[in-house]
């Protein structure tokens, strides 16, 4: 029951209340750049969720079992970025070998994900929040990825309709997308403060 509570609260908190895109501004580049169609946005979101969970877990393990006992915290960022790059490479090779259909759907996004702020962001935040058990680290990193997927899918849906809207010429493209994102943030502010 206790573990179930941790999972529920963790996912809720990361997806709705502390959504990385809306409250921490992480992953803005793909959010503005890629999100033009819902199906590609969904593929990207799922790929990010997968890599975020994997690297969040791995960095937590490396941090607690290799870096901290040996007092190597100074190399933390270099280790994190190596783990993320390695995880992305591994996932890409694995998916291409065993799930060719899946690879065709979101394989093109995989190399991009290595430099996605959400991934490094979740590893850093897990460290800053001082999470000290593995379950919470896994839940939080999965939640961060899901939150990104939700944000990018909502944005893609809005932009599919925005194509038909009559936007002043100077505001077409990036400006109107940013303003839309701002209004969307306002909506998500309604969740603020529900859980610490």
């Amino acid at each position, binding site marked *: 029951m206790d573990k179930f509570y941790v999972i529920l609260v963790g996912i809720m908190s990361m997806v709705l209340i502390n959504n990385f895109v809306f409250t921490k501004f992480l992953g803005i580049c793909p959010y503005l750049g890629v999100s033009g169609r819902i199906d590609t946005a969904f593929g990207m979101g799922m790929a990010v969720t997968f890599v975020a969970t994997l690297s969040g877990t791995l960095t937590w393990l490396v941090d607690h079992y290799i870096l901290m006992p040996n007092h190597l915290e100074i190399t933390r960022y270099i280790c994190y*970025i190596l783990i993320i790059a390695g995880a992305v490479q591994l996932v890409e090779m694995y998916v291409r070998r065993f799930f060719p259909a899946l690879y065709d759907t979101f394989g093109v996004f995989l190399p991009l994900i290595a430099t996605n702020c959400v991934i490094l962001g979740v590893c850093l935040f897990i460290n800053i929040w001082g999470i000290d058990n593995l379950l919470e680290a896994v839940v939080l990193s999965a939640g961060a990825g899901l939150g990104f997927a939700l944000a990018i899918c909502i944005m893609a849906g809005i932009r599919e309709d925005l194509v038909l809207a009559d936007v002043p010429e100077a505001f077409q493209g990036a*400006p109107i997308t940013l303003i839309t994102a701002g209004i969307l943030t306002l909506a998500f502010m309604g969740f603020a403060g529900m859980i610490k």
Partner: protein
Amino acid sequence: MANDAYQPSLLDALTVGIWRENPTFRLLIGMCPPLAVSTAVKPALTMGLSVIFVLICSNLVISSMRNILKPHLRIMMFTLTIATFVTICDLYLRAFLPDMSKILGPYVPLIIVNCIIIFRAEACASKSGLLVSLLDAIGTGTGFTIAICILAGIREILATGNLIGYRVMPEAFVPWLAMQMPVGAFVTLGLILGLSAALTGKNKGAA
């Protein structure tokens, strides 16, 4: 000097990043820090200077090893170089500006995955000599700093009525708290981009 493909004039290398290819206003890359730390001018300026430092160091290192880079390990070498300098920068901030380091929090280490630095390493430093890379880094970094400070200035004035601690708005001014929240960042940047497109008659973002 095997592969010096990118050879602009020296003046061009310095100025291209400040306005014509301003990373934030023109190219729309590396958008996380401009939105996240632009609540006030001081953290924004610190962020800008950190980016300039990392950009100059990584551009110089990458430019000096451009002839021994292997294509498939390129990005890996870029990220490791950048991560090293970001670590130096983060430790420096933590030691000498602890308050600022607390405000900026994870956004300093997030410079590692900032697209601006990788983009300049790929587009300029790995293809040109030390002097051009240095000027390019200074130019792009300055462009980024100017952009982030403009955004932070507008947000700080409207959210608190102050600018770097000095009162600039009349007494009767009611602070717009929303400007300090994420919505303020998005809408301000959107309006700046839209207005600059309307004034210059150009809009690169239009589909």
